[in-house]
């Protein structure tokens, strides 16, 4: 696949989703990057900002199967992955695996933090291994496969915060922000009138193959060793002294309880490669890294009580790390 084709396809997808979603250009781009990089995305935002609509529109534009799972405290793992049911087939009774909603190309895990940890963990294997195991039998998930989970940051009562292990499996954590007045006016215009549009399919029938090719191209994008070293230094700088085996002079470490895992560095580089391709380049620049490092690392930094007390966010820590880590 040619880089131009990648760029063109991605631009068309962006445009199609933006026909439904007002604003959030950056959010849409990052979701698409994560999709073509083969990652999963955690969307965090207050209710009513269009998270679910975004995911729906994206799946429509991709032309791929889409399933939505509303996570509740009484949701069982079998409700997600599926279960064996007794069926009668030509006079014979047998157990047949009934696929759960996880068997789709795009899965929306709505309010994922409302389910119990047991149910949340059922998604873990699916996200990482791209397969589920039911009664000892593994079932491979459709490809491409992407989980788009949403969580509400304010209604914390009756929620089960995602464990670090599960958070680490998300490629990006994207923050859905409130629309600007101009955007809100446009939203109102589109949703309160008679016109109601839905995203149209952009990818061809064999979309899976195309997505796979795009994924391959993304991974081939060149990255200079000094830029790789820069990413390593950035990720290393977020880690605590006990993690990286030695003290460093990054002042924000006082707010970090646990720093980024190697998966964080992988996400940064793949995200930067995707960003480069979208911008029509076949090489990664320092700017690409700095664009994707926030969504790639913010959910991987576990901040301590001091940070909470001083209202220091993960984004602030990352910004300080970027400021303090030299490029050479």
């Amino acid at each position, binding site marked *: 696949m040619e*880089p131009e084709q990648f760029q063109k396809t991605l631009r068309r997808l962006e445009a199609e989703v933006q026909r439904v979603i007002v604003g959030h250009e950056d959010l849409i781009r990052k979701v698409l990057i994560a999709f073509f990089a083969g990652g999963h995305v955690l969307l965090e935002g207050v209710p009513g900002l269009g998270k679910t609509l975004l995911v729906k529109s994206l799946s429509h534009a991709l032309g791929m199967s889409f399933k939505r799972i509303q996570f509740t405290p009484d949701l069982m793992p079998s409700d997600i992955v599926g279960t064996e049911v007794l069926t009668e087939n030509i006079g014979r009774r047998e157990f047949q695996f009934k696929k759960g909603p996880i068997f789709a190309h795009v899965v929306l895990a709505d309010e994922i933090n409302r389910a119990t940890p047991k149910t949340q963990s059922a998604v873990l294997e699916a996200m990482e291994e791209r397969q589920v195991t039911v009664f000892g039998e593994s079932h491979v998930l459709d490809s491409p496969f992407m989980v788009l989970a949403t969580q509400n940051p304010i209604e914390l009562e009756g929620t089960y915060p995602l464990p670090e292990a599960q958070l680490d499996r998300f490629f990006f954590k994207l923050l859905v922000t409130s629309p600007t007045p101009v955007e809100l006016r446009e939203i109102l215009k589109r949703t309160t009138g008679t016109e109601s549009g839905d995203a149209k399919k952009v990818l061809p029938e064999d979309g899976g193959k195309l997505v796979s090719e795009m994924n391959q191209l993304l991974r081939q994008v060149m990255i200079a060793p000094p830029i790789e070293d820069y990413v390593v230094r950035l990720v290393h700088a977020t880690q605590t002294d006990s993690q990286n085996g030695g003290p460093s002079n990054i002042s924000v470490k006082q707010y970090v309880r646990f720093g980024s895992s190697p998966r964080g560095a992988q996400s940064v580089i793949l995200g930067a490669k995707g960003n480069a391709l979208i911008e029509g380049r076949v090489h*990664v620049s320092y700017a690409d890294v700095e664009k994707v490092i926030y969504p790639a690392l913010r959910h991987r930094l576990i901040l301590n009580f001091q940070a909470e007390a001083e209202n220091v966010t993960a984004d602030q820590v990352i910004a300080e790390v970027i400021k303090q880590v030299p490029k*050479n």
Partner: protein
Amino acid sequence: MHVISRLYDRERPENLVFRLVAKLSHHALWDSLLIFLPPVLALIYGAVVLSHAAWISDLASFLVIAVAVGLGVLVVLLRYRPLIPSVSSAAQLVDQRSGANDRFLTLATIEPTHVPALLVARLSQETAGFMERVELKRDFPYKLKRSACWSFGMSLIAAILIHFLVPLAAPGTHTLPVRQRLSGLAEKMAQKPGLNGLAQELKTLAAKLEDPKIHQEEKQSLAQEIEKKIEEQQKKEEQQENRDLLGEAASTLKGIEKEQSASGQDQQKDQQKGGGGIQSNLPQKGQGDSKQSEGGEGQSKSDPSMQPSKDMQSGNSTQGNQKQPDQEKNQQQSADAKGDQPNPNQPGNEQSKEKIGKSQGALKEGAGKDKASEEPPQGAPPAERFYKAGEGKEGISGARYVTVQLPEEVAADSKGASRATKESKGTRARPQVPLSNVPLPAHVPNAPAEKQQLPIEYRGIIR
């Protein structure tokens, strides 16, 4: 090797980066050189000027220059090596200039074998479009660093100071030894055909000046004699170079004469002030040590009158080993004698004083004992136990001696026995003979009947 092979391939866009690396390396080398070269040159100049002015020898100046050059090269290398830019930093500079968005960086640093050739070709093509935006000469010119200006300025000031201050300094103040100065001149003169004889004489003079046995006046007269010869030769000489050389020799000889006469005057003054002293073969720890460390320059200024006699030299005197006591020692000795008392601050004197006290005490004790019950019977020879320390049946055995050096006026008067006797009775203790290991003359009342060395125990009595 990979980098070097790419370095000479000028068609590739990444070669712009490698050329920039080379250019910036040269800049760094110039920076280092311009900072450290001026001080090194100033140091070399200083060494040459000092060598010409005979402040330091040729060997010393050569060593200074060699060390300065070596140090300079080392420091330049130490400073230059960390300043050599890396390929990535040079590529970033090119990217910043051209707005290539890290294209040069990627192209210059990636390993092409690990990346699809199609993408590399595409990147190379893209980057080539940015090459025109960068011109190394225009965008990366060499700029003189402020530190280099400072270094140059300070070194220039130092060189100017050396240039003007060294000739201003007194010609006789340099520390080159007389013998070396004269030998140097003699060597120069020996190379000239008509001056061979004078050169030989200068060498002889140099040797004699160092010889402590030769009297000061003799040295002076020798110097004057040669000086006259040189002046005569100078008048006869037609060649300017030879005349200059002779002039230099004459001025050096004048300087030497002045030095000699000044040291002679000093010594005379010392003697007039009461330059007497006591030389003893007694072990004098503190003084002995300090005297050992003295010497050197004062060798030529030494007073022959202060030299120990041949007898003393052949003896086991600690001062006899010191062939040329210098002027400082003379001053010290004269200071000792000023108060006509040994200086209590001098540890050696204290020691000798103690010894004197002890011997006197021993004499008194002995006298007291004699008066008591242990007096030997009359007529019979005394038993050995009655002999005092240092005495035996044959007389005084194992006696030590002291050397007493008198001030000139006292020495002159010492011939008159009556005056010496009078003074010996006075409060001021004065030695009666210039050198005490010489037996007292017969006309001195206290002179012993038999010839013997003056025992140390009697020193107190003399005083």
